[in-house]
């Protein structure tokens, strides 16, 4: 079937089986590799992206549900050279190790900050439930708090 959606601000049309996971449409058909495959069962969060601003695990999200919606991936999180506060904080805290799961974590965090601008440690524990095998959680927690500060400072400016 023909499906169209906006990906990182650009209209995309694909002709594909509507049940194909959004992840593979984006990675293989549209050649955007920032969104990662981890488990295919929505259990690890490596494939997290935004659909209309909501964090979605795209390995288990049929592309037909993205029809006419706005999809944002890690490649679209920054505005040109201006990094998203989450990416800035990730740079400052030097969070990534292998880095493979990090786009999913950053997308999950960016969505969390829209809902809860200043998450507590408990909010982070409850909401950031992706898996990082390098176990960068210690720095990630610091980076999430830092991202909240950067975002606040930007909206005040």
């Amino acid at each position: 079937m023909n499906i169209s959606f906006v990906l990182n601000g650009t209209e995309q049309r694909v002709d594909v089986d509507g049940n194909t996971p959004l992840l593979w449409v984006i990675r293989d058909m549209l050649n955007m590799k920032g969104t990662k495959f981890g488990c295919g069962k929505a259990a690890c969060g490596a494939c997290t992206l935004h659909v209309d601003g909501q964090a979605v695990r795209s390995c288990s999200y049929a592309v037909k549900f993205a029809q006419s919606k706005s999809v944002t991936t890690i490649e679209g999180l920054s505005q040109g050279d201006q990094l998203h506060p989450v990416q800035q904080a990730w740079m400052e805290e030097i969070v990534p190790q292998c880095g493979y799961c990090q786009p999913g974590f950053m997308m999950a965090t960016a969505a969390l900050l829209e809902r809860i601008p200043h998450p507590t440690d408990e909010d982070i524990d409850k909401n950031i439930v992706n898996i990082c095998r390098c176990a960068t959680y210690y720095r990630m927690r610091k980076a999430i708090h830092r991202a909240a500060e950067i975002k606040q400072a930007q909206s005040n400016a």
Partner: protein
Amino acid sequence: MSNEQKPKSKSRRKFLVRSAIGLGVIIGGGALGLSPMRRFLAIAVDEADLAYSNDAGVNLWFEVLADNRILFHCPKIEMGQGAFTGLAQLAAEELKVPISMIEVVNSSTAKGPVDGFSTGGSNSISGLWVVLRELAATMREMLKNGAADIMGVNATSLQAKDGVISGNGKTMSYGEVVQQVTEWKEPEETPTLTQRQDWQLIGKPIPRVDLKPKVMGDPIFGMDATMPGMLYGSVARPTQVDVSFQGVENAAEVEKMPGVVKVVVTEDFAGVVAESKTAADLAKEALKINWKVNKVWQQAEIEEMIKVGSGKAFVIQKEGRAKRLLEEEGAEIMEAEYFSPMAAHAQIEPNGALAYVEADKATIMMATQVVGITRKEVADSLGFKEDQVELIPMYAGGGFGRRLHTPNAMQAAALSKAVGKPVHCFFSRKEEFQNDTFRPPTHHVLRGRLSADGKIEAFEHQVSSGDVAFGSALLPRALTAVAGADFGAWRGGLNQYKAIPNYRTVSWRVKLPFATSWWRSLGLLANTFAIESFLDEMAHKAGEDPVQFRLDHIADDERSRRLRAVIEATAEKGEWGKPMPEGRAQGFAASTDANTPAAHVVEVSIEKGEIKVHKVTCAIDPGIAINPDGIRAQSEGAIIMGLGASLFEKMEIKDGVIGPTIYGAYKMARMKHAPKEIDIIILENGSKPSGVGEPPLGPIGAAIGNAVFKLTGQRLRSMPMELS
């Protein structure tokens, strides 16, 4: 550098210089020496000055480009451990350039040095510590010699700094030199390396060089590899262990499914090639494969095999007469058994490979920890010579030892050969969990005897483990006879308290009916869990403070002094023995691995029946700290990964099927489990750098268990640790 060292260095470094189409200078190192066979193979693995040969004849380490960038073709892969950054610091230090001028790229086997061994064992930095700096220093001198000729001055009047050569009032950038030089002159002797007090980059907490690409989501991983016209492959893998492939019933039928290009059946496996990932997976699921079941295995049978006393025993450490003292009639002997389970690597990026096999050459793009071995396996499987296969390593989305075993590259190549197009092929998560090269389960028996004054008179550790190093492509079969006991299995299993007068370590080797292999730190976590928990038992029995008890049994050689310093620093910074709030307790443990001692003080409570770790203080001594921030990052990650392994992780076999097969069911550390406070103290009491990626993982299990004992009186002797 002393006179004695110069001839040796000169004789073992041979340089090739090639002009790269007017773009710059290429420097290669030939004929690097192999270390002699050591008494223990384990030492060779940790310390070897590895050979990086490349029969393609280029062996390119550095390229200086006209725009003054320097490409460093790195023979070690980057899997999160920070090797690219640490090695870039070593190179930049001697090249006299800012780190920003160096661009680290994965060394393709068609161009650069090929690591004939592996990225692993925490030896990337230590193995290249001297070699890489000498190569970089030599290139710097060649650039100076070139500049001297162009400027018409003596090279000794020139200085290299920040990528610029200056002297006699003139300056040239490296990029300018490489564009103008006509004849490259190698220095007559290997240059003297920069002295420690003059280091500008070594020892600095430089942000990792791959930080930005990883924050931007750049396509750098094996999974992200593409080629024009690429198709998607999927290989059928058994869900059960100890089965053999017997063929496919419905290949022709499956080949008619939508999107399917070909069903490929070889002697060993069956796979499909399709136009999309989804079509390939659907077709693979539809294959009716005959698996011959050799035996249906159960968990109890595995546990019975992994038992001290069964299999083959190797005495790997012996001092005094421990055995006699521990078997003396009437003596009071302490004895305890410890267990660790089978565990999965569970790295988030699945194994996979992109292969393109043409008539007389093949190209492979993938994340592998064994670049040279993978290339050889692919070449052999295709009937090619090694230099007909180009392996382009990609960033690895986690390694932890899982990418030391890469037959999937041969499978991808077979699929590509069958269709004549590039084929990308990778594991599903279920396949990863069921076809892992598992961390083997272990069983430990510890015995100890205290003297009248409360010191350890005799100590014995016996460990039974499935193979770790044995059976891997890294260890040719001929060498297993030399090595005897599996050094991977007993890593961390040796007694490190050498002031104990009588001690003995015995390794029992067992071959399990499924693949077991290296898992970050090999046997370190399990062995340290057993030894350091039992030492705690002995300290309590002796009525001694556990930290003081350890210090009382440390000898006075260099290795022991470094261990002592780490224990003392951890205890001090972690405020060992301070009054704790109600419901909290401290635990302590230490280990030495890859020549790096590490110790932990943990603070633990029990919340809703679960063990909660609030704070970890860790001192670690990597000899010389190349990048303190990288060492902190590795330590933090190792601590939390080890915490998860100690408290949650466990694979089991039922009716021949290993599970669980998905995250969640396979419980691992998540954000909520990570300690809110982690304090890393870095000591530098060595004369050269030692490993960092694995050593800080060692003590965590025992430290947690020891804290739980203090808190509850329960001695937890089995991982994953659960309160009863």
